[in-house]
Structure formats: C-alpha cells, structure tokens
C-alpha cells in the first residue's frame, strides 16, 4: 500500500467519523431553559417530558437560579453570545431593554398567531409580550399579590373576616401580634418586607402604595414618566410601615418574615404571590390559612418565555418548547404543583381552584379590582433598586414615624432621585 493510499484512507476514515458525529448532533437537538425561579424546575421538566413523543431527540436542560443572579446571567449571556439555544424566562418589563437593543428576536408567525389569536391571552398579557405591535415572547405565568392569613390566629384574636381596608390592616396587625411577658412581639401581626437587597422592598412598597391610590411611577399623556409617590398616598403608605414598626410595635425588622415565617406560625398575615400556596402545600400542609384580595388592586407581573435565536433547528425546538409550556394540561399542572398563575385564559383551571380554595383570591377578583404592572422602560430596575435602598434607610429611622413633614421630606428626596434617573434616560415628563 503506497503512502498516498494510506493517507487518503486515513482522511476518508476521519471524514466518515466526522460525518457520523455531525449527523448525530444534527439529530439530537439541545435547548437550555434559563429560569429565575427554582421552584419552576419540575414544571419545565414536566413540559420536556410531555414533548418526548413528538420530539424524541430533543434534550432539555433546565438551569434555574435565584432571580437576581438570573437577571445578571441574561445580561452577560445575551451580550456575550455562545450560549447555544436558550429559552429565557423573563418579566416583560425587564425584557424591554433587550428587545430595544435587538438582543431578543421576534417570535415566528405561528407563535405570534398563537399569542394574539384564538382568545388565548388577554390584551394585557399580549401587550407585555410585545413591543410596537410585534410579539417577542410567549406569555406563561404572572406574579399577583393577595393577603395570606392564618385562620387559627384570626379566630384566637376574634377576627372572622380578612381586613377590607388599609386601615384595617393596621388594626388587625395590632390585634394579631403576640407578645412576651415584657411586651415584645414574638409573632408579628403583619409581616412587612423591611430589608434585603434588590428591588423587592420597593415592589412590596408599591403594592401597599397602590392601595392608597399612589404609584411609584406615573405615566403622563405624552408617554413620559415621573415619580408618583411624593404625595399623600406615599405619606400614608410609608407611615403605615413606620407606625407598625415603631408606634404599635407589631413587627420588627429582625423578626422572621415572609412565607417561611408564615408557614412556621411566626406571623399572622402577609402579602405575597400565589406560589406560596404550592410552597405551603409542600412545607406546611397542616397550616390553616386563607387568602383574600387586597383592598384596591394588585400588581400583576407577567413572566414570558423568550428565545435567543431568530431561526434554525434550535430556535424551532425552543419555540416548540414555549408553546408546549402553554398546553392546557401543562398549565393546570403548573397551577396545581407550583402555584404560579398561568396567563392563558381559555383553559379550565377549575379542577385546581375548586380543590384549593386559597386560589380564589387570585382568580375571583371583586368588581372594580385593579391591576398594575412594572412599566416596560429601560431603567425600571435602577429606579426600584435605588428606591429600595432609600426605603430601607427610612424603615430603620424611628424618628420618621408619625412625622408627616419628615416623611414628606424623605419622599421628596427619593422622588428627586427617581426623576433624575428618568431624566438621564430621556423619559422624564416635562
């Protein structure tokens, strides 16, 4: 065998191996789901399993991390590239900046038809998944707040109904607080978000502010924005925190808080999203509790699925995954097992909502109940993160309690900072 023959055989073998590997990789499609909610992992795995028959070669990797880290990962991943095909779970307001900078492609025509047609989603959810009439994401679920209250504690305090007004919240908190022999609270009457990094403090404040008729950001007729909390509504909302903290002493910053405290009987009531229902079922199944709508309205934070690639086999598989996630069977599974509220409206969820009455506060909204969402503007995270840092300082300052002038001065300074950010981005109302 001559030298040339040997060389050509080796090359042919290499080519064959290469072709075989290529063919194999073309057949097996891999997509990765980036989620900011670790509790969603079983849902995405369930969706992947439901696709096995139609997409036998599809491999779905689910990578869920804490929301703030998830947002950082997206910022770096989308600008850096090289991440493979991604299905990205993202709030509509956060996605706006990526869409404006052409880092997220529009959905294919069939997916757009699914989102906008057949009465699958209400106008609100279509809008939050779109920009300028073009659909960029597939709506999936939403964060919506309601009151969770411990019915045993309510009964012990002689309370038969949930609070109906914000004034009731304070009165109830006072009645529900359990104290030690020295009068120090050991079970908070109303758990409030008072500390921790990120924008959570500001979001929770916005929910309370909304009940008083205010809004962190107000849109003017010309489409620009301004701070909307340096006013009476802001004063009332902030003062309610401070009165509970320092005048009535129904809660302290260092007391256990949030869902964990509620599940352990360390707080009597708190405002949270529907995922807590699933969490309680898993962690504290014997807890006696109920839910109630908030007095005026709630935040609705729609979370959509986006894909990082415009076309190709990977993109097709990723959009197929986003569509499969919206199959009725999967959405009912999501509500039943995770607790996040699906956004698709033409699905019968009654099997779950009837079995778990706590969902009623989220789905049976009273007449006139209003919703608000975070504006889809670039600097929304910065506005909220900076306001959260300011609020954290205010919550640690007892001198502000019941001092309207001091509260007004604080709110004016915070609003000035908010407006400065809007001005820098060319979004401030004149």
């Amino acid at each position: 065998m001559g030298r040339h023959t040997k060389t050509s055989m080796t090359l042919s073998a290499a080519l064959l191996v290469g072709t075989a590997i290529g063919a194999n990789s073309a057949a097996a499609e891999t997509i990765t789901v980036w989620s900011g909610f670790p509790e969603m992992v079983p849902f995405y795995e369930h969706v992947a399993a439901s696709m096995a028959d139609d997409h036998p070669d599809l491999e779905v990797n689910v990578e869920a991390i804490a929301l703030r880290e998830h947002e950082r990962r997206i910022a770096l991943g989308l600008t850096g590239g090289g991440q493979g095909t991604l299905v990205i779970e993202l709030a509509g307001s956060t996605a706006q900046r990526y869409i404006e900078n052409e880092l997220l492609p529009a959905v294919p025509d069939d997916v757009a038809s699914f989102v906008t047609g057949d009465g699958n989603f209400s106008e609100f959810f279509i809008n939050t998944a779109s920009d300028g009439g073009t659909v960029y994401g597939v709506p999936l679920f939403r964060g919506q707040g309601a009151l969770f209250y411990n019915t045993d504690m309510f009964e012990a305090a002689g309370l038969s109904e949930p609070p109906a007004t914000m004034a009731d919240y304070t009165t109830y908190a006072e009645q529900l607080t359990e104290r030690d022999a020295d009068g120090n609270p050991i079970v908070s009457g109303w758990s409030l978000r008072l500390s921790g990094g990120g924008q959570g403090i500001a979001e929770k404040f916005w929910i309370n502010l909304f009940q008083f008729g205010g809004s962190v950001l107000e849109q003017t007729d010309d489409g620009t924005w301004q701070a909307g909390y340096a006013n009476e509504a802001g004063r009332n909302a902030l003062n309610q925190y401070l009165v509970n903290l320092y005048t009535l002493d129904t809660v302290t910053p260092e007391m256990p808080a949030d869902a964990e405290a509620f599940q352990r009987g360390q707080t009597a009531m708190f405002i949270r999203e529907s995922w807590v229902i699933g969490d309680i079922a898993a962690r504290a199944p014997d807890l006696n509790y109920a839910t109630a709508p908030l007095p005026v309205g709630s935040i609705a934070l729609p979370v959509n699925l986006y894909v990082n690639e415009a076309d190709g086999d990977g993109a097709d598989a990723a959009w197929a995954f986003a569509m499969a996630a919206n199959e009725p069977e999967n959405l009912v599974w999501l509500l039943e097992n995770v607790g996040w509220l699906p956004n698709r409206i033409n699905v019968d969820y009654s099997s779950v909502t009837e079995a778990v009455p706590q969902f009623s506060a989220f789905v049976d909204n009273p007449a006139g109940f209003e919703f608000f969402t975070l504006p889809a503007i670039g600097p929304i995270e910065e506005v909220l993160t900076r306001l959260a840092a300011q609020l954290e300082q205010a919550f640690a300052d007892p001198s502000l309690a019941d001092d309207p002038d001091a509260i007004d001065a604080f709110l004016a300074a915070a609003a000035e900072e908010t407006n400065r950010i809007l001005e820098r981005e060319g979004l401030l109302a004149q």
Partner: protein
Amino acid sequence: MLRTKKWRFAILAILPTLAIFAWVRMFPIWETLRLSLHRWDILSRDKPFIGLENFRELFQDQLFLNALVNTTIIAFGVLFVTIPAALVIAALIYHRTRSRFAGFYETTVFIPHIVSLVPAAMAWKWIFDANLGPLNAVLEFFGIPGQAWLFDPVLSVICIIILCSWQALGYAVLIYLVGFKNLPHTLFEAAKLDGASGIQRFFFISVPLLRPITLYVSVVTLISGFNVYAQAFVLASDSQGAPGRLVRVLVLDMLENAFRNYRVGYAASEAVILLCIVLVLTLVQFGLLREKWNR
C-alpha cells in the same frame, strides 16, 4: 558582547511572563479606565465618550457615597482590629513554640483564612441572628439585652468588620510568625540581661523590628478590606424570611450598577475611584512606615 547576550536572554525569558501580566493585569485596568469615560451601557450599541460625566454623577450619588463611607469604615476597622490582634497572637504563639500545642495554635488561627467564604459567612449570620443566634443568648445570660446585629445600621457594619477580621487574622498571624522567627535573638538576650521585661521587649524590640512585616500585612489587609463584598452580601441575603440589612459597599454597588442597571461605564468609574483610594493609601502607608524604619 556576552552582556548583550545575557541581556537578550533575560528579556526573552521574562517576556512570556510580562505578556501574561500585561494581558491579565494591565489590560483590564486600562479597559476600566477607558470604560469609565464612556456611557457604556452593557446592552446598547451606542456607547459614546462622555469625558468625566460619570465621575461628576458619582459624587452626587447618595448610594455611592454611602458605599464609600461604609467601605472605608470597614477597611480601617478590619485594619485596626487585625494588626494589633495578629501581632499579639503571633507573639504568644512564638513564645510558646516549645509547647506541644504550638502547631495546634497556629492551625487554629489559620483555619478561618482557608475556610470557604460563603459557608463561613452563613455561620456568622447564624451567630449574629437576633432571635436564634448564640451571641444574643450569651449576652442575655449575663443580663445584657440582645441586639439586632444584622439590622441596626451601626451594628451591621460592626458585624462585617468582625467577620472580615476573623478571616484576615490567620494570614496576618502567619506572616508575623515568620517575622518573629527571623528576629535576632542576641538583641532579646541583651535586653533580658539589662533587665527588660517581656512586655518591654515586645514593645521596644519586637514591634519596631517587625515594621516591614507590619507594612506588608497592613497593605494587604487594607486592600482586601476595600474589596469587601461577599461578606456584606451573604450577611444580608436570604431566599426568604428576614434577611439582614444590606450594608452597601463599593464592590456591591459596582456590581449592581454594572449588571443590574447595565451601566458598565458608571461602574467602571467607581472601580477607578476604588483603585485611586487603594493606591493612595498604599503609598501613604509605605511612606509612613518606611520613613520611620529609615530613621
């Protein structure tokens, strides 16, 4: 001719190292300086040159100023706790080297330095916990009311100083021990013959002779103090429940501006300020300690 060849060989030998150093050390610093002069939004394609605008905005930014004050207090707090404590502990260990427990002492002091930061911070978070932490339990045992360590604006900063000092101490003690072992015995023997007590020998012989070590340890401690981040982050973080009060420090503020607000240029200007502070303080420390050493 031979000298030229040796010179060329030396250059060629050092060139790869210099190239790596330039790439991983100098280039990022240069890039940070460049970014700080641009409106460099991580997502937008238009990244215009804006001169010193980022720096002008920084000094009107209350969060940055808070972070600057907190970081400075933490860095100097750690320095003032670590250096004297390390010196004393190293002296105690050195003068007990004949003890069979000497190795145990050294290891015990050094372990916090090699323990992974996050679990260590989580353990301290539990210690400082207002309701369940052993620190308040001990205080209450002695009739002292428990404190909201992680929530009070002043105490939360002190908690970070304690945590950082606990971690920095082991390294400082180790370096001081090396220093102690290299001190000339004759001086101590002479002082002993002249009637100097142990404390006098420590203050009038050991401390002055250890100044170069003190210089090195204090520079390293101060720089790591200014780079504090994970300690503040972990002590304040929790998936649920009541996390601690977030003590805003410079690196945390930088990360927030870069990856949460997408303002990389603005965050770079913070990094430049941090670089300048550390550089100036290092030069001042060198100046002060070298001046005294040369006297």
